[in-house]
């Protein structure tokens, strides 16, 4: 079936969830989440049957592409959304407390489940935006898709309206997000002015033309790069990341961290490609990307080291992973290579999804049942909940890049690409960053395994209960991390 049916189905699913919430009296609104998850799982299955219908002669295909990359990122968006809604189910108790008129009135709030329906519906619309973003190959459709996603996130970040942290995060995200949107549009305007087109294939052609206005083209590139660096959280535009990640509700943080970053990178790949392919601009564009990648790796990893709040730690970690991904983007191949940058980025993001979502699933459980998100709240987790501690250990090992996990293969390919492109200094920065990563990821392991658990009677001493869907998700992610860490073939072969 044509790929664009998928977005339509997802939007209809979102509307259905809203309608059911409005017109069907539900005893427990969490059943809406199961409806959403089942629907998205169905779309995920359909995603495998979608065919590349691009190249038709209707004007629609000027706006939309359904190549391998697009389908791949649609899969990532769907999987992320499913896991986020799953987390939201566990998180709903905390969420209701953050929304209820009187936060202390625990009992009455629990019965009402205020606004829970929207919290399950919004991710579906964001998902539709992310999927469209993966397919956009026209400046207008890129912009519209991006805004669909961003506006959805504005609402979700500030969702816990009685919670000061969540509100602060919402305001920060709104202001900086709007600013970066301004840069993006301005950059698009310049790009249109330089190339006379809004379609990416035509832009690529125009950028290779001999009469290209180099300065103007580079200015357009700079503006676009600034905006996209905001979206993916690259230095020096990463300032919003720690605060917003810390303040947003846990499932939203996970969504931002994986979904938003993946979509940012697919746009980045599509927009950078014509500039990299241009013989005049290639060197300057590469230099800019290399500098940003190096700074992002160094800053993200070093700033993560002193963090004691786990969410903040993962926020800096997400900055550092953006650096590794940019490293791949900056390494256009000069010879026949084992992997292309596109394949490496796609693989890295899939691995990043697995390990980050695994970490967030467990963080979510700890947040809800132990009431905290600091590293101290993880003390002795290996004694009270050995399964969760082991899963978190695997997630951290994979994020740190320990071999035989998916995270290592991603890093390995990035190193191969960067060395093939001859970016030796960048590899040096990556070595420093990756080594620093060992420290802060293992800090979590230390808290779980070395430190004594809390005294009996305290909330932190009780075992954490895990519902079966969450447990199934954790086990599946664990298996995926090991499987793709040893056998990355089935993911990479798509791109060869």
């Amino acid at each position, binding site marked *: 079936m044509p790929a664009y049916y998928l977005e339509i189905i997802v939007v209809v699913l979102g509307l259905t969830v809203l309608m059911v919430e409005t017109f069907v009296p539900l005893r427990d609104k969490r059943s809406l989440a199961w409806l959403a998850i089942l629907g998205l799982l169905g779309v995920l299955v359909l995603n495998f049957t979608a065919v590349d219908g691009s190249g038709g002669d209707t004007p629609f295909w000027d706006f939309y592409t359904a190549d391998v990359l697009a389908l791949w990122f649609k899969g990532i968006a769907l999987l992320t959304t499913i896991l986020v809604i799953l987390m939201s189910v566990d998180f709903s108790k905390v969420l209701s407390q953050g929304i209820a008129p009187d936060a202390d009135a625990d009992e009455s709030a629990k019965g009402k489940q205020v606004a829970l329906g929207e919290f399950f519906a919004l991710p579906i619309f964001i998902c539709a935006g992310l999927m469209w973003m993966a397919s956009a190959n026209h400046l207008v459709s890129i912009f519209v898709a991006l805004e669909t996603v961003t506006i959805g996130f504005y609402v979700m970040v500030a969702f816990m309206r009685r919670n000061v942290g969540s509100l602060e995060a919402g305001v920060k995200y709104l202001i900086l997000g709007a600013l970066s949107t301004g840069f993006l549009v301005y950059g698009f305007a310049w790009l249109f002015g330089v190339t006379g087109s809004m379609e990416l294939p035509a832009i690529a052609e125009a950028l290779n033309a001999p009469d290209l206005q180099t300065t103007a083209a580079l200015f357009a590139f700079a503006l676009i790069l600034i905006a996209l660096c905001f979206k993916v959280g690259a230095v020096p535009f990463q300032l919003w990341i720690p605060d917003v990640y810390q303040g947003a509700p846990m499932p939203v943080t996970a969504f931002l961290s994986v979904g938003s970053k993946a979509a940012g990178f697919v746009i980045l790949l599509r927009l950078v490609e014509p500039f990299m392919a241009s013989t005049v601009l290639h060197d300057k564009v590469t230099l800019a990307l290399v500098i940003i990648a190096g700074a992002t790796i160094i800053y993200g990893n070093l700033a993560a080291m002193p963090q004691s709040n786990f969410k903040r730690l993962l926020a800096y970690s997400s900055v550092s992973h953006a650096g590794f991904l940019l490293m791949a983007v900056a390494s256009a191949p000069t010879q026949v290579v084992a992997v292309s940058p596109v394949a490496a980025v796609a693989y890295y993001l899939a691995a990043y999804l697995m390990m980050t979502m695994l970490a967030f699933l467990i963080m979510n459980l700890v947040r809800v049942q132990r009431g905290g998100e600091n590293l101290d709240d993880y003390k002795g987790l290996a004694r009270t909940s050995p399964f969760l501690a082991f899963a978190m250990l695997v997630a951290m090992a994979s994020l740190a890049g320990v*071999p035989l996990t998916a995270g290592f293969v991603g890093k390995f390919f990035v190193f191969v690409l960067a060395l093939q492109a001859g970016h030796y200094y960048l590899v040096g920065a990556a070595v420093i960053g990756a080594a620093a990563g060992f420290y802060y990821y293992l800090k979590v392991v230390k808290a779980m395994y070395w430190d004594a658990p809390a005294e009996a009677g305290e909330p932190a001493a009780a075992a954490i209960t895990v519902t079966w869907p969450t447990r199934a998700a954790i086990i599946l992610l664990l298996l995926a991390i090991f499987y793709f860490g040893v056998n990355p073939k089935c993911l990479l072969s798509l791109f060869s």
Partner: protein
Amino acid sequence: MTLLEAIIAVPIVAAIAIAFGSPTRPTAVAAAAINLILILFAFGQYDLVHQEGAYQLTASHPIITVPDLANPGAEATLFGLSTGVDGISLVLLLLTGIVTLAAVWVSPAEDQIKGNKRLYYLSSLLISAGALGAFCSTDLFFFFAFHELALIPTFLMIGIFGSGPNRVRVAWKMTIYLGVGSMILLAGLVALFVALGGQSLQFVDMQAWADAPAAIASSSLENGIFLTLLIGFGILVSLFPFHTWAPEAYATAPTPTAMLHAGVLKKFGLYGLIRIAIPMLPNGAAHWQTLVLVLLVGNILYVGYVTIAQKRFDLMLGNSSVMHMGYAFLGIASMTVIGVQGAVLLMFAHGISIALLFALNGHLRKRFGTLEFDRIGGGLGKLLPTLGLLFGFAIMAGIGLPGFANFAAEVMIFFGGFAGLFAQEKDFVLGPVQIATMCAIWGVVISAVYGLRAYRNLFMGPLPDSTKDRKLADLTLAEQLPLILLIVTLLVIGFAPGLLIKYLIPSIENISHLAG
């Protein structure tokens, strides 16, 4: 599944079984014993007479294939789970098998385990699996990956079960050192892969590419890659001046971890130099030979004097293990066949003897709770005669007394070091290797000083008042058996080093660019 894959799989399967509730100690010991038998079986399968190709008992499961540039239409393996052994890896497998069995057999102090027995045995088995996998792999990806597999278990073991007031600081220091080292190593290995065509991570293909004339475009690139690898491997082997993590880590680690890490895992770096860096980057190796010689003399003399100054037995052992790595580096840096043979034999002999010493160290710690020479005060020979006897064997082996495998290895290394003395017919040449060898021979005196002093301070003399009235149990038979296994191995190889050397000779002669 081939024999080698079974050897890698047994400890992993046993570790998973332990995680899911299999009885801890019996499972671990059984797995280690089965593995040792399998390894001996691999020796039997290895064909010494008809050697075709560099590796035997090979199996390959390609994971990613790329179009072959040389033969259009064909597929070349980019990387895959390839296993195979030659004489060098076979000897190291035997080392791993023996030390693993001894390490899980040595009964730990109960208070060390702190109720988490599963993690204790599971981690030990995973460390062993990592070493076995690294020695069996003939693919760069898995060679690196298996070694790293051991990093997390080691971190957990030292952090949870380590002893001493500084265990947190020490565990961090070691983990950061090893993390930095392995990331530098990764960068170096990937750079090597890219420089050697970027088509295959299989050792055989990379070596074939490296043997082609002018394989690497510029000599500065080759030198740079070799230096990166040297630093990466050097940190893992505790090459001076990157060695400071090792003594403290071994002194703090629980007994099986110290045995496995100092005895087996640390040899990975030397193995990597012999397997990858020297044969694939011969010009780089020649370029940096002098630097290596200077550093290894630092290992032997500087760390040797540091070892003499130690006031605690466990720190003395940790330092001595760093010092002995200097000899292994000397054997490799001599770039002669006999020197490299000696280096591999020393890896084996030192692995066994340091594991033995750390096992004894654990028994002493269990009985005294301290390892400071002054607080123990000597005279233990009367109190613990069996422990004293075994300890004597271990110390003599560590010093390198004839009759122990260590002696054979060190002598071969010195022969290798002096081999170039009459290289030119007219006169004898005192090159950098020979000067370094002469310095290194002083190391023998140094190790005799600290070894014999440790023996005197612990076991000789009258019993001090503090221990006179204490009833201390001597080693039980169950405690003796793993130690005897190690001592017998040292003696057998010491009297008949040919048993192992006949496996080493063809494989090491295969390494090009070594002087005969």
